[in-house]
């Protein structure tokens, strides 16, 4: 594979928050510290994660979402028309604050770029609606567009999910034992993939060999220049130590496979790809 670049390492978005930031968020919610105090700690934590990713050699960095309590509530907080309700459990001992629509929803200021659609595979009959909504979101966007889908019935959502007009679909694969890859043999995956290779809901740190195995399974059905290697989902559910350990394993495993197969690490140009509008293959 000499001359081929690929298997770029990245993350889904969030990282574990350091204990001092967790405490500060609680203090801020109780009115004990100011917005500025919290902001300073969030910036310091963000910088720490950026330095960490640079140090271990992650290819495409994220900011770690130190300023977000939750992936959905954060956007509701930043838009007009929502009130933030009480806690609701998502699983185990994990909770989020439920956004409640109380008026017309409006974007009043720039927030960030984020196209996560974790629930896209929850209602199969609404997948065309997801694709239609994403077409509006990505219309005219001159950047590599990614959507993240997790913890749904991928087997039923595939291949219809390919109709979502993005360049890359990021999927949790470790949690579902890489089962979906088998289907790619019959119905080719037409976009770039974000390949989740470590479980974000387990304290256990995967071995490099386990992650190498997952990457090699993907290489049986996709070329390296369409694979971005990352954790299954946001790592905010893990402690700082666990987050670091899991990211180190991801980077080490990719390095090992690249060396073994002669794959380079030159980054793609970040432009829209042909894959954005390449939907599900038409059956022969």
């Amino acid at each position, binding site marked *: 594979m000499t001359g081929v670049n690929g298997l770029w390492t990245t993350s889904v978005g969030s990282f574990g928050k350091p204990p001092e930031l967790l405490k500060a968020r609680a203090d801020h919610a109780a009115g004990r510290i100011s917005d500025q105090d919290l902001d300073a700690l969030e910036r310091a934590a963000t910088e720490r994660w950026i330095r960490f990713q640079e140090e271990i050699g992650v290819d495409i960095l994220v900011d770690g979402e130190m300023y977000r309590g939750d992936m959905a509530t954060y956007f509701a907080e930043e838009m007009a028309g929502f009130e933030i309700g009480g806690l609701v459990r998502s699983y185990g*001992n994990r*909770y989020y604050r439920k956004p409640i629509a109380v008026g017309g929803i409006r974007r009043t200021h720039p927030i960030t770029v984020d196209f996560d659609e974790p629930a896209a595979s929850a209602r199969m009959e609404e997948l065309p609606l997801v694709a239609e909504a994403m077409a509006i979101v990505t219309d005219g966007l001159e950047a590599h567009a990614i959507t993240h889908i997790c913890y749904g019935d991928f087997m039923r959502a595939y291949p219809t999910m390919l109709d979502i007009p993005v360049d890359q679909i990021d999927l949790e694969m470790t949690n579902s034992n890489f089962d979906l890859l088998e289907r790619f043999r019959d119905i080719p995956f037409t976009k770039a993939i974000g390949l989740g290779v470590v479980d974000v809901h387990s304290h256990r740190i995967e071995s490099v060999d386990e992650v190498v195995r997952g990457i090699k399974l993907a290489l049986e059905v996709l070329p390296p220049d369409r694979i971005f290697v990352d954790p299954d989902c946001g790592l905010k559910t893990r402690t700082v130590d666990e987050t670091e350990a899991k990211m180190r394993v991801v980077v080490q495993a990719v390095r090992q496979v690249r060396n073994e197969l002669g794959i380079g690490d030159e980054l793609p140009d970040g432009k829209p790809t042909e894959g954005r509008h390449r939907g599900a293959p038409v059956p022969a």
Partner: protein
Amino acid sequence: MFATLVGAYPRTPLPGHPFRLRAAYGQLERGEIDAAGFRSVQDDLIRELVAEQEAAGLEPLTDGGIRAEDPLTYVARGLEGFEISGLLRYFDTNTYFRQPRAIAEPRWTRPITVEDWRFAASTTKKAVKQNVIGPYTLGRLSDAGEIAQQRLTLALAEALNHELHALAAAGCPLIQVDEDGATLIGEDREQRALFREAQRILLDGFGSNGTHVSLAITMGNADKSGEDTIFDAPYASYLFDLIAGPDNWRLIARAPGERGIICGVVDARNTALDTKEVLIWAAHYAASTGGRGLARVGLSPSASLEYLPRDRALAKIKVLGEAARLAAMAPSEELAQALDPRAVDIRSAAFGRYAPTARKAAEEAQAAQPAEELA
């Protein structure tokens, strides 16, 4: 006429109160408390939630599902033959369960929910019911592995039949079997037959032993599965989600008149407060079907109330209890004064709140204006 939960209730605190259960999970993980210490925190919360339901006028009561991490895993862990795998979204909700994976034909070796029921029942003089996940749903949502879905489901039916008998032997007066998977059957003949066979095995020995066994179906429409499928086994009553599954009204209309109906009409997945008039309308409509009568009808949320913050859930069960109280009243001046007759039209019933047409709303607004403004 009564009001009851489908099962689960938020384990989160009311605003301004400490979240002791969440802290206890952390303490347990760090080894700062042992299992008994953790259970005593759960016990305190269950006492609080039972009292909350009782004060709202609900009966039968539940323990809020506090001890279960999710509806499937808790029972799967208690049986032999499962290992617990990765997270999966529960239907189209924002909650997840860990998928059980069958590694052998499941076997019942000990009671799973009996002690939980005993504790909840000890905290009140009211009747307490116990939920148990049904064999079809557990079999369908699990990874059947090498054991095909049919074999797994029927083995589960046999295993859970032991659990139901253990609950009955302990004195549990009302067992609710949760079969949300029934919404996935549709017109598939094999799945229909499997559902029927599983329910028959599950209810073997019930029907005349004094324990009321109820079938609950939430998360969507089950009418396409056919009434022959749903009403085949001798359940004493049926709870249907009428918000995510409005076509379940068709099943209610065809339900044998001697069986009870619990109308899941309080929207468990929307924070907007429900209109008691619509709930009362639903209760009376269900009572009118098949000559059932109000004595065989109850009201409930459409699904688990865990999809809501605690304060919203509390507001909803208060409406639920009040609606059941009013629905049971004979026509009287008090009843007339408690209800807004405008709220009960087809459009409002569909929305679950008073929702006049634009024209009617304009007419009402005009009528409400002072006479001098209209002149």
